[in-house]
C-alpha cells in the first residue's frame, strides 16, 4: 500500500526539528554567515535532538534503529532552518555512518560510542578533491598497502571541521577502488590547510587537507582487509543532499510567497500577477516532486529494493536543479530586495548552487 504519512515517532521528531529550525537556526543564520562562525551552543542544541543518536542501535550506545527515510525527513527539516547549521550538526554523520554501514564489528564498537557521546564533537570525512573533474569513484588521492600499514597521499578539499576533528575518514584510491580509511588527528603527514572561502556555506568551516605519505595501520581501512563498497555511502549522500536541497528550496519558496502576498504593485499584490504566480506554482510543484523522489529513494534503500541506488541518484540529480531554480526564482520575485543581504534569499541561492559540488558532504 502507498502511504505518504510519516509515523507518529517521525512526526514528533519533525516537529522538534521544525521548532529548532524556526526558533534557533533562523534567527542565528544571517549573523553566522556574515561572521563565518557558528555559535557552538546552536550546534549543541541541534545535536541534542538526537537524530544521529537515534539511528544507531543500542549495541553501540545509540538508542534507536537506523532508517534512511527518517534521516531524510530530518535532513530536510534541518536544512529548511539553515544549511550551514544543519551540515554542522550532521558533520559527525560523515564519520559515524560509513563505519556503521561498512565498518567491521571492532570498528563499530571502537568508534560509534565515542562519536555519539553526550556532547557534539567534530568527527569528519575527506572525500572531495580540488579539481573540477572530481569523481568519487576515481580518486587521485592514493592509498598503498605496505606490509601492515597503508600509506595515503593526496590533496583533499571541503573537509568540514578538519582543524578540530578528533578523527576523519579519508577516502583514497586503493587499486582502482575508492576505500575509506580512519585517520586520527595528529597523524604524521596529515596537515590541515587554511579555512576555505566558498560562494555559500560561509558559516560552515571547510578546510583543505594535505596527505603527505600518511601512514596508518592497515586495520584502519573500513572493514579491515576485506574493504567495502562505496555504494551505500554514495546513496546515503545522494538522498541526504536531495532532502537538504528540498529544505533550502522550501525555505526560499515560503519566503517568496509571503513577500509576494505583501508587496504592492500597480494597485495589486505582486502575487496577483500571473508572471509571478506561475513562477510560484512551478516552484511549489517541483519542490513537492523532488521531495517525493527523495522519499521514494530513501524508502527503496531501507527496503533493499533493486535500483535503489539509481533512484537515489535520480533524486539527487533532480534536487540539484530544483534548488537552484527555486532559490533563483525566489531572489527574482523579491527583485532588488532579493539581492540585498537584509533578506535571506540571496544566501539560500548561494547555498543552493553548492549541491552539485557537495558530494559526500552530508549523510543520513
Amino acid at each position, binding site marked *: 500500500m502507498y502511504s505518504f504519512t510519516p509515523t507518529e515517532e517521525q512526526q514528533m521528531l519533525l516537529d522538534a526539528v521544525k521548532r529548532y529550525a524556526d526558533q534557533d537556526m533562523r534567527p542565528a543564520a544571517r549573523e553566522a554567515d556574515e561572521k563565518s562562525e557558528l555559535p557552538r551552543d546552536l550546534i549543541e542544541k541541534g545535536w541534542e535532538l538526537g537524530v544521529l543518536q537515534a539511528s544507531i542501535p543500542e549495541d553501540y550506545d545509540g538508542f534507536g534503529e537506523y532508517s534512511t527515510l527518517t534521516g531524510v525527513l530530518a535532513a530536510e527539516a534541518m536544512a529548511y532552518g539553515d544549511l550551514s547549521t544543519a551540515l554542522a550538526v550532521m558533520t559527525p554523520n560523515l564519520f559515524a555512518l560509513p563505519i556503521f554501514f561498512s565498518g567491521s564489528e571492532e570498528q563499530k564498537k571502537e568508534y560509534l560510542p565515542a562519536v555519539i557521546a553526550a556532547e557534539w564533537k567534530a568527527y569528519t570525512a575527506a572525500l572531495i578533491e580540488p579539481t573540477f573533474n572530481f569523481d568519487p569513484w576515481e580518486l587521485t588521492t592514493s592509498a598503498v598497502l605496505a606490509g601492515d600499514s597503508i600509506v595515503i597521499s593526496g590533496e583533499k578539499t571541503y573537509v568540514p571541521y578538519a582543524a578540530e576533528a578528533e578523527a576523519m575518514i579519508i577516502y583514497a584510491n586503493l587499486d582502482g577502488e575508492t576505500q575509506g580509511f580512519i585517520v586520527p588527528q595528529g597523524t604524521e603527514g596529515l596537515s590541515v590547510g587554511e579555512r576555505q572561502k566558498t560562494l555559500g556555506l560561509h558559516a560552515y568551516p571547510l578546510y583543505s587537507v594535505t596527505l603527505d605519505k600518511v601512514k596508518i595501520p592497515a586495520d584502519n581501512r573500513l572493514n579491515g582487509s576485506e574493504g567495502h563498497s562505496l555504494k551505500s555511502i554514495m546513496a546515503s549522500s545522494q538522498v541526504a543532499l536531495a532532502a537538504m536541497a528540498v529544505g533550502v528550496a522550501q525555505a526560499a519558496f515560503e519566503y517568496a510567497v509571503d513577500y509576494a502576498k505583501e508587496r504592492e504593485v500597480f494597485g495589486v499584490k505582486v502575487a496577483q500577477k500571473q508572471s509571478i504566480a506561475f513562477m510560484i*506554482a512551478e516552484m511549489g510543484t517541483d519542490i513537492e516532486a523532488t521531495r517525493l523522489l527523495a522519499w521514494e529513494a530513501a524508502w527503496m534503500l531501507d527496503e533493499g529494493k533493486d535500483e535503489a541506488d539509481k533512484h537515489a541518484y535520480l533524486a539527487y*540529480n533532480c534536487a540539484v536543479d530544483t534548488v537552484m531554480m527555486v532559490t533563483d526564482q525566489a531572489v527574482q520575485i523579491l527583485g532588488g530586495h532579493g539581492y540585498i543581504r537584509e533578506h535571506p534569499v540571496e544566501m539560500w541561492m548561494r547555498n543552493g548552487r553548492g549541491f552539485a559540488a557537495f558530494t559526500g558532504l552530508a549523510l543520513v
Partner: protein
Amino acid sequence: MISFEMPKPLVQTRTVVKTVAENMMRPVSREMDENEHEIPWAYIQFMHTAMKALGGSSMAADDPPKKKEQDPKKEKRPSINYQCLMVMVEMLSWGDAGIYLCTPGGMLGAAAVGAAGTPEQKKRFLSLFQGKEPVFDAMAMTEPEAGSDTSAIRATAVLDEKTNEWILNGEKIFVTAGHKALVDSKGFIVVWASLDLEAGRAGIRSFIIEADTPGCKVTKMEEKLGIRASDTVSIVMQDCRLPFDNILGSPTIEKSTKGYKGAMATFDATRPIVAASALGVARAALEFVHEKLAEENITIRYGLPRQKMTNLEREVIDMETQLRAAWLLTVKALWMADNKKSNALIASMSKVKAGKVATIITQKAVEIMGPVGYSQEYLLEKWFRDAKINDIFEGTGQINLLVVARNILGYRGSQLR
C-alpha cells in the same frame, strides 16, 4: 508509515493490462492513426467483455455501490480505486493513447456523475455501462467562445415549468468521444450550461443528455495532430428537452458558486487521470530510446558527476528523473483522492507536471533519435503527436498553473485571474 509499495492488486492489474496493450493496441496503433475516425471495435469489445468479467463495468472510480456483504470484524481498508484507474490508464496509454480514449465504460462523464450526482443518478447512469453492448460517455464543456474560461459558457438551460423539463440550447466543441457516446452507442454526455447567463459561474450546471435525445446532434468530427483513434466532435443542442432529474447537483441558483465548485471538483479526480495517460505515452517514448541505444551498445552510466556525463546521458537521465517526479505526484494525488483527502493542489500539480514532462520527453526523444525518431517506420513520431494533447485538454498547462498558484496563495479566482 511512508511507503511506496504498489498495492498487490495493482501489480496484477498492471501485468494484465500490459498484455492488452501489447496485443490489442500496439499492433493496430499505426493503422488507427492513419485511418482517422475509424473505430477500434476489436479493442472495444474485448475491453467491454473483460471489464464485465472482472466485475467492474466502467473505468469510473465511483461505480454504483455494489451490494457486497461487509465482514464487520474486518477492518475497512482504504479504497484503491483511483490508484487502480491510474495503473490502467498509464498502461493503456503506453499501448496507445488514442485507442485508450476509446475504452468503453465510464470516463469523464461518469466521473462527473460520480462527483456531483445523487445516489439515484449514479445508479441510473452508471448502470448503463453494464449492458450487453459497450457504451461510452463524454464531457461537453468547451464552446467556440469558451475554453478554459467556463464563465463564458453561453449554452443555456431553461426549465419548462409546465412539463417539468429542461430545455437546452447551444453549441459544444472538442467533445472527446462524443460520437461514440451519442451515435455509436447508447451512452450519454455531460453538458455544461447556464441556468442564468446574468449569474455568471454561479448559474452553471451540468446536465446529462442520453443518446437519441431529440434536439441534440453531432455536427462535426475534428481532424487532429494526434490521438486520431479517438473522436473529437461538435455537438449542437436545439430545444433539446431533458427530464428534470437529468440535472447534476442543485437546480437552484444560489449567490455563491457552490454548484459550480461542485462541478469543478470533478477535476480533482480527472486531472491526475489525464496525468496518468501522459505518463504512459512518455514512458513508451523513453523505453524506445533505451531500446535503440541498447541496440547500438550505448549504455547510460548512472551515478556519474555531471561534468563527466555525455550530453546524451544528461538528457536521458533528466527525462527519466522528470518522468518519475511526475509519476510520484500523480500517485500521491490519487492516493489522496482514494483516502478522501482534499487534493485540489496536488491534482493540478500532477497535471501540470505530467503534461509538460510528456511533451518534453516525446519531443526530446524524437530529437535524440534523429532520422529514426522522425520516421513513420516507428511509433515515436506518433507518440510525439499524441503526447501534446495532455498539456491541453482537461485544462491547459497554464490553467492548471493558475489553479496551483491559487491554491498555494490562498487566492480566489477574483484575486488571481
